[in-house]
């Protein structure tokens, strides 16, 4: 049996902070390369996408493992995705555009990949704001409907990445495939598949457990 961590949330939070710590360490040691602002923009964008995908994998993981308590970490994972999205947005308006409102406005309207990225960021805000228990209670059933926006947001995030690369689509496509898989697992067909996988897994473990007990018995 794995030893249960005493403070799983704290550990997860520490892990989620690693990308930021890495940027700070690299920045302090001149390790961000020839174009540090591009590096920071890319890195915060990447970790936003990763954060969204990790958040989206909580539900399939629950169905696969039967561990309902995993839901306890979803809020924090989602908020970290929002945190990196915020850093990504600040990098853009501060380091990239240097608070030039005219240039930013023009960029958002004229550049499809920025329009899409900006939309995704705006849509994340209400989700972050309504992430508290109080808001969940207040919104009731509508909370769930509102938070389904994450499917759209993740999709916009992948398209944002796809449209910004010059030619090599392989990396954005990897995120696209991962997102597609996570969405498929939510369809009735995907849910059945996950449940089937789980019951097979449980049955196998049961057999192993029985065999183990039997073996132990005969050794006595």
């Amino acid at each position, binding site marked *: 049996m794995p030893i249960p961590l005493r403070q799983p949330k704290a550990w997860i939070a520490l892990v989620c902070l690693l990308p930021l710590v890495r940027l700070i360490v690299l920045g302090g040691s001149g390790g961000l*390369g*020839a*174009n540090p*602002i*591009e590096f920071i923009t890319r890195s915060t964008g990447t970790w936003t996408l990763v954060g969204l995908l990790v958040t989206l994998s909580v539900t399939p993981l629950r169905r696969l493992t039967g561990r309902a308590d995993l839901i306890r970490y979803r809020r924090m994972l989602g908020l970290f995705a929002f945190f990196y999205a915020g850093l990504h947005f600040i990098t853009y308006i501060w*380091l*990239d555009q*240097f608070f030039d409102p005219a*240039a930013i406005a*023009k*960029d958002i309207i*004229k*550049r*499809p*990949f920025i329009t899409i990225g900006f939309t995704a960021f705006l849509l994340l805000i209400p989700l972050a704001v309504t992430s508290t228990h109080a808001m969940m209670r207040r919104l009731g059933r509508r909370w769930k409907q509102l938070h389904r926006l994450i499917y759209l947001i993740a999709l916009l995030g992948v398209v944002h990445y796809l*449209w*910004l690369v*010059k*030619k*090599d689509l*392989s990396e954005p496509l990897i995120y696209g495939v991962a997102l597609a898989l996570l969405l498929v697992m939510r369809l009735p067909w995907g849910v059945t598949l996950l449940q089937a996988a789980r019951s097979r897994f449980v049955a196998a473990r049961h057999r192993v457990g029985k065999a183990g007990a039997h073996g132990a018995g005969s050794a006595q």
Partner: protein
Amino acid sequence: MLIHPADDILPSEITPPEIYRERRRFMQGLGVLAAGAALGAAPDAEAGVKLAGVRASAYKLDEDKTPYKDVTTYNNFYEFGTGKGDPAENAGSLKTRPWTVAIEGEVSKPGIYDIDTLLKLAPLEERVYRLRCVEGWSMVIPWVGFPLREIIRRAEPTGNAKYVEFVTLNDPRQMPGQRSRVLDWPYVEGLRLDEAMHPLTLLAVGLYGEVLPNQSGAPIRLVVPWKYGFKSAKSIVKIRFVEKPPLTAWMRAAPREYGFYSNVNPQVDHPRWSQAKERRIGEFFKRDTLMFNGYGAQVAELYRGMDLKKFF
């Protein structure tokens, strides 16, 4: 058999690097003396070796040069991978000797030039040029080379030669990035003949006074400072004179986004991003992009009467 332990070597027997380099340079001198003698003593082709006899030129800039480290570790050279650091990491597999450049097509004197002949074709000069990448960043680089027109003159283009096509080496064993179909290999670029003949158009064999590192397009590359960086083909093996505009690698990949001319132009945006500003590597604030990358006085004449939005 007696195997000497490594500490048998006296410290005094180890050649200090400066002497070692000096010897190399001396041997290089001998190599030049024994011109054409393919009998072993070929000049050292290694990156970082000082190029001999480089003259200063009038092409200087009042702008800070981009540090050597940034110039040679932040590259777009898809033959070695699409990441900016990939070329510096992977270009070690490129062999720059032996190397030949074929001159062919609509010329009276076609031929195959050995790289070591090309190095002596015309006096080498240092030229400090701005380089503006289509992605929105820029550098200032001290190239070493000679004007492309030196070769063109010798090749004697016929009346049918209207364009010049440049072809990069196509060898996935040496260029691991070519194993991926990210572009249609080989990399092809092109210029109009008058652009190719322009005194600014350079064939570079070095930077910062030294032999070109592989990731910068060794052993010989084009530098067309008023056009976006991708127009300056690297590791060239063929220069062909043709009647029709060549179909360049980037035009084939995305015709809506990359035109034949690809002159630096802050007024004509890339369909997906603005070209009005650029980030000079090493600087914090973006600077305004200059028309023809600041070379308008020299090259604007080439495009007189042309709609540069149409001929982007």
